[in-house]
């Protein structure tokens, strides 16, 4: 041969295959948008919107109060209480057709204080306000809750005042009290919120980032008939698999990293907007540990994706098989609400989905050595099985000839 050649090492071939794939995917807008733009923007936007619309200060519930009990003590007290409640934008009118105002969407909640309301309370017959709202309006439900709290507060004050005049105290009325003490390491709802959402998002990103790449890569090569030329090259199928897999994993990690940044920004927005100061945050010291688990999750999800992409006849079939996997990431969210902490720790050992629970428990500080060891062991075994299967599939004539 006139051209001098030196057989490249496996590492060099893996690098060459990975580099080729990177050049290829860098020119694929669909993959770039999915892998880079979506994770960075999705959650800041989502949480920003949630933070704005869920914030009672920036987005109070409009309430119309029709006070037909002019000059009554209790009606005035209730109206003043409503006017001073944070989260409500109250408009007081002497008479109004509340139903049309609420149905028309001008107000979330209508409160009718009937004529004779105060005198009825004073006489002992009791008074009753009528509240109207549209149940399909979530902000209205928040408004009704705030109105109810004001009504109950006024009712309690009226009762206490009347009882006191008869020599009966609050302790006489409620002789047995209750104190609730929180135990365990979870001390705030904000901490629980972040521990639930954050791991699911991150593991989701490990798959999302490489999704289109995995769909397009082996199944796409089958469809474009480029595998045959690739397989006539000297490297083994294992080396070719590793080159492609390396790309998918790097892409998965880039997306997860951006998703991590996006999620932290988003949670920060949510925290600031909702006023839950200090509740929604994540200590930076946990990041290396979390990212180590995410890397393992990325390796597993990419191995699973490549097995499916290799088996699929074409891009369409690969999409059909791979898309349902996104539902896997919602399973832990449901499981968290259904299982007590002790069983959740066992769930962390479930391959592929257990990562989410493990990260959750690390954030909450409840992950024990046994939980971590079992979860990592089961997932490492799963990863090795998936890698073995992926290489086997790529080496199988029956699978490679499955085209169409």
């Amino acid at each position: 041969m006139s051209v001098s050649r030196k057989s490249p090492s496996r590492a060099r071939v893996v690098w060459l295959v990975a580099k080729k794939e990177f050049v290829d995917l860098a020119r694929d807008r669909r993959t770039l948008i999915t892998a880079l733009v979506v994770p960075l923007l999705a959650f800041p936007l989502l949480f920003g919107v949630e933070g704005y619309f869920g914030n009672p200060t920036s987005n109070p519930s409009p309430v119309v109060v029709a006070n037909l009990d002019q000059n009554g003590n209790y009606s005035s007290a209730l109206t003043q209480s409503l006017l001073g409640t944070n989260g409500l934008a109250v408009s007081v009118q002497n008479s109004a057709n509340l139903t049309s105002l609420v149905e028309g969407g001008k107000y979330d909640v209508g409160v009718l204080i009937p004529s004779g309301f105060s005198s009825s309370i004073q006489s002992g017959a009791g008074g009753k306000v009528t509240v109207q709202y549209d149940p399909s309006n979530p902000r209205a439900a928040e408004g009704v809750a705030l109105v109810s709290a004001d009504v109950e507060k006024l009712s309690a004050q009226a009762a206490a005042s009347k009882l006191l005049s008869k020599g009966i105290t609050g302790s006489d009325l409620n002789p047995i009290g209750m104190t609730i003490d929180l135990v365990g390491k979870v001390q705030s709802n904000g901490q629980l919120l972040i521990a639930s959402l954050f791991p699911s998002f991150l593991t989701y990103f490990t798959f999302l980032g490489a999704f289109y790449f995995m769909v397009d890569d082996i199944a796409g090569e089958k469809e474009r008939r480029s595998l045959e030329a690739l397989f006539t090259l000297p490297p083994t199928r294992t080396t070719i698999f590793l080159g492609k897999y390396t790309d998918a994993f790097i892409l998965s990690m880039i997306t997860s990293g951006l998703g991590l940044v996006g999620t932290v920004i988003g949670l920060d927005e949510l925290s600031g907007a909702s006023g839950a100061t200090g509740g929604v945050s994540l200590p930076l010291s946990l990041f290396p540990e979390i990212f180590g688990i995410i890397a393992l999750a990325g390796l597993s999800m990419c191995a699973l994706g490549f097995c499916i992409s290799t088996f699929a006849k074409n891009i369409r079939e690969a999409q059909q098989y791979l898309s349902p996997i996104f539902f896997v990431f919602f399973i832990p969210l449901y499981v968290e609400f259904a299982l007590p902490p002790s069983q959740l720790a066992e769930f962390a050992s479930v391959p592929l989905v257990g990562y989410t629970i493990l990260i959750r428990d690390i954030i909450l500080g409840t992950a024990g050595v046994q939980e971590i060891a079992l979860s990592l062991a089961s997932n490492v075994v799963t990863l090795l099985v998936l890698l073995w299967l992926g290489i086997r599939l790529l080496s199988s004539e029956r699978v490679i000839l499955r085209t169409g």
Partner: protein
Amino acid sequence: MQGLTKKFGDKVAVDNFTLEIPTGIVFGLLGPNGAGKTTVVRMLSTILKPTSGTATVNGYDILGQPGLVRQSIGVLPEDTGLYDRLTAVETLRFYGGVQGLSGPELDERIEKLLKLLELFDRRNDRTAKYSRGMRQKLALARALIHDPPVLLLDEPTLGLDVMSTHAIRDYVKGIAKEGKTVLLNTNNMYEAQMLCERMALINNGALRASGTVTDLESLAKTKGLEEVFINLVRSDVSVA
């Protein structure tokens, strides 16, 4: 090739195929569509494993030394299988790199092949923008990037226009003069007669005849390769 057989389930794609291809010639493997030509090439290029039998390519056994076989061959498959988002230079740099070429030598080789195949002016265009003829030429350059001693060309001019067909055929003639061994799969009799010193006819997966054009004409008792082909295929059908 010694008793080379390939079965897909119950279907026998290649049946006990025994053939020796001399070194340094263009050898035509002729046969109608579905005769088993592509399966033979896939087995020789180690993409498929024979169900039984074996073959050696450039002295290397396809079962025992598949890596060395793949180092010795350049393959132009039936479908070019190019990466649409890569340019011609990127394509050849990738395939050349994996074949063990690097540095200035690889760059020179890429330049030489692209100039020879008249693709140099479009070397930095993505292959998605190439015509079918240009894609076929680039696929040929890809097969030749590492200067292999054996070339397996599967229907290299199928569906090409006159100019591209002419260019590819010219180039195959040139390769033969360099002393390389070329296995040319085709069902184009004109092309076979023009390029191949020797040829074999395969039908229904089995070898029907082999030799020079003259040998085949005497066997089929007719003149002209096209008539030979038709006679041999028809007789095969009647035998079956």
